[in-house]
């Protein structure tokens, strides 16, 4: 019989061929993603329709509250509903992938306690649902753009870059939460709250140009410290064209922050993943 490999199990060592193992298990990654997708809308009547209804309804409410009751305006030449919808679309993608990643280990606890595979598979496979919802929302956005007779500019080619950046951001924060969630169930309570705060702290219902207008307020730097601010601004700029406010310099610091956070969270995840089974 041919022996494929020899492994050594030792304290604190982890698997030496971790990344190779991860690659070997790509089929598992794929099949777990498919599982999450096919389970998602089982026993619902509307099914994937929910992915359309939720952002649309949120947009309608926000347009009513901020545009008709409060007199918020979009940036020059950009219809307010379209701006809100662009913001909601990318924010929903971030918040759903972030939430899924944070819960991914706990939701698969039966696998954690019974089998071994590189644990990164779980958070990675959990994001696929967010992707599908995102593309449905983008289709909705395209339809509504036609209604407003809006055509995107050349910036649209940067669309994939912003999508990847958002995914990296949700991994950078989600992985840390996923690890902490195993030991501290407080995290599960904290996540919806964070997502709710984020919704208001990010330029979704409003444009960052309003913040820029009050350049000297004390919280100005704090506002831009939030990495999602520049990503959302950039995404809106990418879909809506030059009229949308986007401070490019803010994106550089965001990318730096995400790179650092991602390194830390992957390191932390790798360090802790072998003890998941003892605490879950």
């Amino acid at each position: 019989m041919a022996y494929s490999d020899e492994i050594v199990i030792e304290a604190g060592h982890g698997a030496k061929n971790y990344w190779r193992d991860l690659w070997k298990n790509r089929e598992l990654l794929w099949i777990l993603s498919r599982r999450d997708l096919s389970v998602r809308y089982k026993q619902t009547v509307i099914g994937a329709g929910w992915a359309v209804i939720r952002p649309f309804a949120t947009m309608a409410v926000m347009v009513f509250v901020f545009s008709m009751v409060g007199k918020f305006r979009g940036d020059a030449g950009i219809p307010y509903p379209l701006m809100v919808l662009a913001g909601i679309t990318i924010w929903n993608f971030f918040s759903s992938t972030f939430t899924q990643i944070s819960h991914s280990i706990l939701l698969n606890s039966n696998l954690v306690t019974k089998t071994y595979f590189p644990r990164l598979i779980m958070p990675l496979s959990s994001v696929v649902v967010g992707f599908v919802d995102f593309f449905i929302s983008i289709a909705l956005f395209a339809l509504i753009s036609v209604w407003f007779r809006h055509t995107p500019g050349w910036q649209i080619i940067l669309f994939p870059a912003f999508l990847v950046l958002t995914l990296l951001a949700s991994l950078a924060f989600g992985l840390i939460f996923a690890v902490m969630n195993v030991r501290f169930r407080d995290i599960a309570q904290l996540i919806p709250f964070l997502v709710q705060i984020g919704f208001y702290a990010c330029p979704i219902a409003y444009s960052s140009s309003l913040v820029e207008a009050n350049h000297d307020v004390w919280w100005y730097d704090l506002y831009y410290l939030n990495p999602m601010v520049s990503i959302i601004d950039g995404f809106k700029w990418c879909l809506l064209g030059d009229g949308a406010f986007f401070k490019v310099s803010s994106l550089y610091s965001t990318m730096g922050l995400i790179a650092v956070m991602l390194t830390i969270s992957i390191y932390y995840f790798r360090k802790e993943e072998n003890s998941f089974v003892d605490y879950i």
Partner: protein
Amino acid sequence: MQVIIAEDISKKYIIDHQKAARKSHTLRDTFSEKIKHFFGKGEQDEVEQEEFWALRDVNFTVNQGDRVGIIGHNGAGKSTLLKILSKITEPTGGKVKIKGRVASLLEVGTGFHPELTGRENIFLNGAILGMKRQEIKNAFDSIVDFAGVEKFLDTPVKRYSSGMYVRLGFAISAHLSPEILIIDEVLAVGDADFQKKCLGKMRDVSESGRTILFVSHNLAAVKSLCNRAFYFEHGKLKMQGDTTHVVNNYLSHVAKTNLQHFWETPEEGPGTDEIRFRSVKIDPEYQDSKLYIDVRTPVRVHIEFWNLADRADLNLSLHLYAFTGECIFNVGTASQSFEKGLVSATLEVPGNFLNDGSYVISIMVVKDTSTVLFQLPDALSFEVEDHREGVTWYGKWPGYVRPQLNFQISQSEVLV
């Protein structure tokens, strides 16, 4: 060739005594402890932590093609060992070298998703166990066939009966083709027919030169399947070697459960003002110079008690319960008039009567055939081990009793 070499492996768990009931900590606990510590108050109300060694300095080697049975009480470290070997948890100390692909089957149907159909779950479960898509496709038909679920392939498994669920789970694992297969207690579930099928399949697997590590409480199955055995006790590898030898040694340790009680004086003995127990005792007539009770062993129950009343009409009533609580039988002595003093009684339970299992005896003293004076509820307990000759089937023998009745079979006519 040695395929598994374990050197001094240990696994330590920390047990919190104060919070034993709670599964995980909350951030608040951690913070408040940190704060207490900071102000120097930590010492007196600190959580009492105890180290618990689930495994301690375990050394062994396994050769290619070995079929190793792992036995021991619950909590002896068997499952921890399997978890370390299948990389689910890390050892605290020591080192294991493993050559070859390991598939662990710690629970049948791991990762089944209730909402998915049987077909989808075959692919899901196969991938979780490390099979390639093509391998699953190739084995698909034989998996479905082995599990007997053709008709329900497109039904969500949440609608499966528990038997179907287990069969499908085992079928998938049985068709894996790893070099080392780790199995934990698969035979605890499923009916006798299915268990037989499983054992047959495992024997096929081992005949193709693969290595099997098999944890089970079903000693008959271990004996029939394995050529070597490891006996674990309190996290240590107490004994290893030839299966029969190790299993017999294990049994003679298990059997000393609760075979006798003796009270010196009437004041110490349990009872009332009228009667006090002096001794209760099980006296087995061991077979083949073994030191444990098996299904062939005749057992005597001796009971002695003091009658403290001047004269009383008394009889004894004895209940034998299965470990699960069902009463197997109740027997009583004749009622008789006794003077003040010692009374003794003996009950003979013949061999080839009780099935294998755990039993508990309770004893009652009855006055005037109507009033229960005193009852000794869990007076004695003992285990009956399995023993078989001339059969090739090793599933759990059904029933509470296993009598050898006169059951004749013969050819009554020959068709020409």
